[in-house]
């Protein structure tokens, strides 16, 4: 199991105002699977992604990546876990508009402390994988939405992650660009064996994944195919 959550609980606020975002959620993903988590906004699907991606701590239960329990790791170790093994794709892309496409893709390698020499080569390879090599010196603001998300994908895969977390990756795109992004993601999943965790409310996208989970009021159920 690449990711395993056992009876995790996440509560926001205290006392009367306490809100249970995750209610004893158990969940496990095998290496190379593509997993979709669907649910309405406020259902807790984003919270689930955040805790699985070690961006947030849980109040109860355990989460493990490759059998390593998050609870036993210090903040710095969780940082390097994300830096070395996870990739992130967001609905709003979160590119730095003032910098070039190449600089944006380089960022995870800089953070991970990869040497200057191999950095550029790897970033160019990632840009080639999303077919944007010719835009490498363009400013990120000058790109279209679809292109921006492709840059984000390149940034997510540049550090050779085991898991890519994608939060509504096609949410801000038209159907044509959306399907191109989907195609890219599933290609990575198939060819490189990268595990995909996609949070979405797009049922068509969810149906293309190996497994589908429904999130409702903090509870998770797997939809049978």
């Amino acid at each position, binding site marked *: 199991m690449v990711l395993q959550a056992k009876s995790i609980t996440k509560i926001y606020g205290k006392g009367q105002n306490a809100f249970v975002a995750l209610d004893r959620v158990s969940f496990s993903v095998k290496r190379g699977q593509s997993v979709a988590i669907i649910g309405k906004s406020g259902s807790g699907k984003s919270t689930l992604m955040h805790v699985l991606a070690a961006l947030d701590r849980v109040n109860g239960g355990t989460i493990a990546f490759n059998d390593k329990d998050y609870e036993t790791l210090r903040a710095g170790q969780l940082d390097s876990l*994300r830096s070395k093994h996870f990739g992130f794709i967001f609905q709003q892309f979160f590119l730095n508009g003032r910098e070039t496409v190449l600089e944006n893709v380089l960022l995870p390698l800089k953070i991970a402390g990869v040497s200057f020499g191999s950095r550029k080569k790897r970033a160019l390879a990632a840009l080639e994988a999303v077919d944007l090599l010719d835009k490498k010196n363009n400013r990120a603001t000058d790109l279209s939405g679809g292109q921006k998300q492709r840059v984000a994908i390149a940034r997510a895969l540049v550090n050779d992650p085991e898991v890519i977390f994608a939060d509504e990756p096609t949410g801000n795109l038209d159907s044509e660009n959306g399907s191109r992004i989907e195609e890219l993601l599933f290609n990575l999943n198939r060819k490189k064996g990268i595990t995909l965790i996609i949070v979405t409310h797009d049922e068509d996208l969810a149906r293309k994944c190996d497994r589908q989970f429904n999130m409702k009021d903090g509870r998770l159920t797997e939809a049978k195919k």
Partner: protein
Amino acid sequence: MKLLDILLTANRNLTRSKLRTIFTILAIFVGGFTLTLTTALNTGANEYLQRQLGNVSVPGVFQVVPKTDVNPLQTGGVKEYDPEKQQGSITDILNSTFTQNEVDKLSKVEGVDIARPLYALSGKYVTRADGTGKKYQVSQVVQNIGLRFDLAAGRLINDTDTDSIVVTEDYATAMGLSGQDGVGKKIKLAYEDVRGNITQQEVTIVGVMKKTFLTSGQLYVSFNVSQKMAEDQGKAARFFGALVRFKDATDATDEKVLKDRLQAAGNFTAMSIKERIGTVTSVVSAITAALNVVGIIALVAASFGIINTLLMSVYERTQEIGLMKALGMRRGKVFGLFALEAALVGFWGSLVAIGAATGVTLIVNKVASDSFLKDFEGFTLLVVDWQNALFVMGLIMLIAFVAGTFPAIKASRLNPIEALRSE
């Protein structure tokens, strides 16, 4: 993230809001510029004093005067008279209350080589012994106290010399005896005796010393000359102090021990030559220290500018910081990124300030040496040396870094999820 990456990223972030960065740097510049100039003034003055006086002081030579424990300004109120306690006031020095008795006491102090009366002598004029030249006014005739002045020709007066004199270059030139020509020549030193008659004393020039601001207008005579002058002027029995020299004193000698020994011998205040010179340099240091405070205040004001600039930057870049933290950038590195940005503002500010101050220094020095410092040969008013430049730069970067810590802590504590959610 590697340190070099953090440095490059921080520097690039500064260039994003150029105008804002420039104004922050300008605020730093004002403080840095002031500080560079004041330290340059301090260095310039001290270098000059060092060059003029550095070698002058002879170890183990003290000037001893009566102790003055009555405060002439009477601050602290009127004190009761105590017949048991010997009292002295500043007027004791002015009234010349020292006698041979005190000198004898001093000569018995352990380690003392020579103890001699110190007279306040006045002269009238000097002129060539052959009577061919003009007469030149004398302001002060000084007993040879063994100061090691720089010489243009000849040598200094030693203990065994009699009827000898050391003159400054300007006297030598006036009398037409400059340089090597003057050495060995006889001149006449004229002074007024106790009855108001002009007496001429023939003396031989053994050395010509370079002009310094300490020595201009002074003539140094051998002990026998000063003694004779004192007798004629009625100053031999009571004089203002004594000159004491210790045996075998070197630069490594602890003069404090010798000073204590002299002061224990009677109601004396002893001061070494080094101490007397030290009072001059400490006045210069005090003035420049006061000016430095102005520079520091400007820098403290500028540091609030840095805090403001960086806080705005943190708010503007909240999403970016959130992304970097999500991608695994550690808290310490986020802190480092912002703190370094502040230090870089300090670096650029101080670099510009030091550069501009150096430029100003060149102009001011040129103007000064052509006008009010004309008579102070070799006095470079402002000197920016690399130690001072590094000190100013280090200080400014430190202040900037400290100012940057508050915004940097704010940035490092951002929660990545919330930061990414912010618009």
